[in-house]
């Protein structure tokens, strides 16, 4: 990905009628700095799902994910004014979130302790009306099994796999968010997936 087009992240903004506006990330930050409270609301609305999802998959604990989400956005609120572009606002938010998760896990959990607490993985919200209760139960079971296995991966592998496969980031973005080289990202994703495969008992 080294030769990735530097403009690959095309984000343009315009009004409903088609008049262009400036870079929405910069616009958002400028509005926040100028004291427009809605700018932060917008940041929350855009990224809270992403941050909560990351925290939930990393911690495997909804209550902890809620706390983490609050802490992350508190930090974002304080530091959003210092965002200068350079990376997209999205990767910047991920970086803040990852750091928050890491420092929390380092403080509250000895590394030897299992990261998954039995029974805390909430029943997933399944919105597929076409499925019967058995199918739903089966799928919930499968989700729990996968979330359980994921929680047993070493943190750096878990981060890489979650960012890639659940959050859908490109390798380059993951490198940016985690502060390591793309080669390292590639290796962590591969090893994380392999460990997960073994935990799940090979191909399903």
């Amino acid at each position, binding site marked *: *990905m080294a030769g*990735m*087009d530097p*403009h*690959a*992240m*095309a*984000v*343009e903004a315009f*009004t*409903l*009628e*088609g*008049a*262009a*506006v*400036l*870079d929405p990330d*910069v*616009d958002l930050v*400028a*509005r926040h*700095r*100028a*004291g427009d409270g*809605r700018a*932060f609301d917008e940041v929350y*609305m855009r990224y*809270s*799902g992403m941050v*909560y*999802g990351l925290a939930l998959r990393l911690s495997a604990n909804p209550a902890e*994910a*809620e706390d983490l*989400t*609050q802490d992350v956005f*508190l930090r974002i609120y304080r*530091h959003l004014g*210092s965002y*200068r*572009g*350079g*990376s*997209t606002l999205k990767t910047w938010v991920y*970086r803040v979130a990852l750091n928050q998760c890491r420092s929390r896990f380092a403080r509250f959990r000895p590394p030897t302790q299992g990261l998954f607490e039995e029974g805390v993985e909430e029943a997933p*919200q399944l919105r597929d009306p076409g499925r019967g209760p058995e199918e739903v139960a089966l799928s919930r079971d499968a*989700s729990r099994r996968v979330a359980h296995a*994921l929680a047993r991966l070493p943190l750096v592998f878990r981060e890489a796999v979650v960012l890639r*496969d659940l959050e859908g980031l*490109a390798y*380059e973005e993951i*490198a940016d968010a985690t*502060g390591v080289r793309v080669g390292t990202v*590639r290796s962590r*994703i591969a*090893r994380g*997936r*392999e460990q997960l*495969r073994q935990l799940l008992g090979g*191909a399903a």
Partner: protein
Amino acid sequence: VSRHLDLETLSALLDSELAPAAAAAAQTHLAECAECRARLEGLRSTVSQLRALPAASPPPHVHEALRRRLAMEESTRRRLWAPPGWPARLAGWPATVAASFLALACGLLLHAYLSRHPSLPPIETPLAAEGEWRATITYERASGAEAPPAEEAPTGPPAPKVAAQSKPSAPRREYAPAPASPPAAAPEPMVSADAELKERSRADAAADALLAEQAKRERAAVQTAAEAAAPANAAAKAAPAPSASGPMAAAGQAEPGMSPPVRIAGANPDLGSLGKLRWRQSLILIEGTVGVDGALHDVDIRPGDLDPRIGGLLRRTIATWRFEPARKNGEPVPVRYVVTLNIDLQ
């Protein structure tokens, strides 16, 4: 039979993150090696199980709690006379000590207040005209539809088919292309957000004023454009598009060869038609994907607990929208499309 493929190659192949030459070599090997094919399938199955995990969003009370904490923080900051964006700890420790007492006091007061008024009182008013809301639309390439650009040979052949197929579409997840800049050099595995952010704010202190000034001008320009656009569509079309030489030139983020999706049919939501409403929301986000067929798919309207009348109106309106799809080098491509409605509640 050539050497077996290593784990990293197989995994990167699933993500279309191999250079074309390497991908082609891997495909050649896979074609003749059942063992590697089986390992690839094993990984692929793991990945699809992982991607089947349901997407989650934080419960509404998280936002409420956050608002309270922010309100406390804001009141403390005002007492300290620190400008916004100024980390409280930089105000020096005497101020910090004073701040903790003040924070405690203000916190208690605020808590007492907020527990009686859990959220801002809603405003009961009809939205008289379109001028009372403004929409901003952003779009970005929906990835997953296409293999990312090649490493060594950007003009080379597209990634082999097996790689492209291996990206199952996950409608609830954002698959965005790579970031606009190379990763910042971050030597330690554990980057301290605080240190980094503080570092940034110090280094950019000088640029700050400049940027704020620029932002102000940009904002003015945007508002002008929006205001011109809002009252009538005809006026909007006449509204001058921002020139590339203006301050907005800084926004030159558009992907080369990429043209935005253009709405060719459908009306704007007539929020005024809802009559008197208790408007709690000053911000509504509409997200979807403009497909190559010109329709808006997978529409998600946030917040989820929006007044059903507003939600219904928006959905009905959106259903009428048709687009000339976005194009990359003349080829229609799907893009993620986000409409941000800012409602002016005074």
